[in-house]
């Protein structure tokens, strides 16, 4: 079986590919900003935080995409807002408050899944199934990608300033909280859109791994955003192919490919990688 033939033959594979590329366009740029904020693990936290919403949605309205995504979105936004406001109020640092809120949310989610009437497969919630992407899920992913990219273009300047020097924007009365919460809402939206295809855990992988890897490609923020999208797209295509050829679960295959690219760039990327540090050109050499 060739590399391309399965995609020509199976409709569901083409749909998975389209959905995966949509995610690859929107999630990694958010990851780049999360890395710069030193919030690399927050995606993980928010990914867990949406679980109770998904469970409640499924319990009340059955296993429909709208119910589960809507519930997940509400739960994620609630945790994000609560944590953000607790941190903005100065009660504690943002990572600490998010850790507190997401752990409560996760425990609540697992409790609801085990107690609820609907037969929810926890494993599928956490790891998803990219081959079950239906039209509604595909539309959600494509819509999310559109909203994310347009949003990022609009709030790019204030978001960069807020990320680099929040105190400066505060002194300028630049409404730092607005841009910050807008950004975190995009993170939640992307995780929710990705959870059906990749599961909550794997969705974070596609957001963060290309973002971390992009550091080894470009020294500029814009360069890292472009590089992260390229890496993620490559990982989606390679992961789907690997999953078909080697019969591995699709979500993990995609994240493993992203991980492999990250490790390769960590060792031999053009910027600040192990090789780039070792093979330093002589000083002042052109």
């Amino acid at each position, binding site marked *: 079986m060739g590399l391309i033939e399965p995609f020509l033959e199976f409709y569901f594979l083409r749909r998975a590919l389209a959905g995966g590329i949509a995610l690859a366009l929107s999630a990694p740029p958010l990851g780049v900003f999360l890395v*710069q904020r*030193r919030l690399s693990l927050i995606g993980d936290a928010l990914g867990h935080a949406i679980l109770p919403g998904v469970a409640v949605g499924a319990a009340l309205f059955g296993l429909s995409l709208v119910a589960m995504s809507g519930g997940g979105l509400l739960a994620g936004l609630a945790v994000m807002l609560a944590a953000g406001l607790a941190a903005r109020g100065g009660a504690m640092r943002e990572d600490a408050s998010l850790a507190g809120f997401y752990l409560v949310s996760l425990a609540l989610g697992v409790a609801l899944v085990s107690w609820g009437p609907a037969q929810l497969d926890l494993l599928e919630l956490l790891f998803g199934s990219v081959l079950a992407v239906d039209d509604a899920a595909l539309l959600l992913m494509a819509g999310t990608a559109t909203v994310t990219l347009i949003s990022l273009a*609009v*709030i790019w*300047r*204030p978001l*960069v*300033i807020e*990320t*680099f*020097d929040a*105190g*400066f*924007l*505060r*002194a*300028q*009365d*630049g409404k730092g909280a607005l*841009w910050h919460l807008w950004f975190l809402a995009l993170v939640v939206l992307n995780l929710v859109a990705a959870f059906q295809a990749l599961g909550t855990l794997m969705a974070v992988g596609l957001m963060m791994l290309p973002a971390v890897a992009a550091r080894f490609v*470009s*020294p*500029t*923020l814009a*360069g*890292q955003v472009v590089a992260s999208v390229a890496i993620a797209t490559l990982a989606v295509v390679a992961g789907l192919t690997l999953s078909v050829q080697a019969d591995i679960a699709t979500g993990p295959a995609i994240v493993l490919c992203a991980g492999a690219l990250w490790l390769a760039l960590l060792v031999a990327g053009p910027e600040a990688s192990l090789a780039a540090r070792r093979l330093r050109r002589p000083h002042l050499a052109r």
Partner: protein
Amino acid sequence: MTPPPLVLDNVTVAYARHPAVHHLSGCFAPGSMTAVVGPNGAGKTTLLRALVGELQPESGRIDRGGLAPGAIGYLPQASALDRSFPLACAEVAAMGMWAAAGPFRALSPVERDRIEEALAAVGLRSFAARPIATLSAGQFQRLLFARLLLQDAPVLLLDEPFNAIDTRTTADLIRVLRRWHGEGRTIIAVLHDLELVRAEFPDTLLLAREPIAWGRTAEALTAETLFRARLMAEAWDETAEPCHRATSGSRRAA
């Protein structure tokens, strides 16, 4: 450019009940250039943060004469910023245009030229495209000065602006301060180098939680006042009685 005076009326700022600035009254006159001097923990940074509006006084009042938030340029101690952030020098300096350009408007060619000029004024000509990760601590401090230049603020608050900076750079930055002073801007700077204060700053506020002296530098910095400032106890006095000093002005009327 005549900024309004900054008037402090019996201001107390406290962290967890313990005052860091205690019953401070006075006025930073328009166009004045004041050094804030005092031992560690004397409330110097707290005073600046209260002036810029980051901290609310527990009692007393700060009258900024209706200055907009963006009209006070504030240079915090630089250590808080992530210098490995993937930004170019010109991009960081350009943040000073926020008040003029806001979150969305594109910068005009004239404004781009002003960014170049600001970088040149602090000795960073030809650094525009350099990533900030490649700057030394002193060069980064100059970059923050360039950003402050572009803010074009009538009131400038500087928190230990010359820390970890070599003498030549300090001299360069002092020249920028003199220019601002000449343009009639109000300058308030926290400093530790008393020689520099005596040479460059007409006015001094000597702070040891409570004001020890505030006036012309020669009169504020005497052996006697400096000795009194050193007597300030850094430790919190847990047995201190609540302070019932008469509150003045508007609060008493209220």
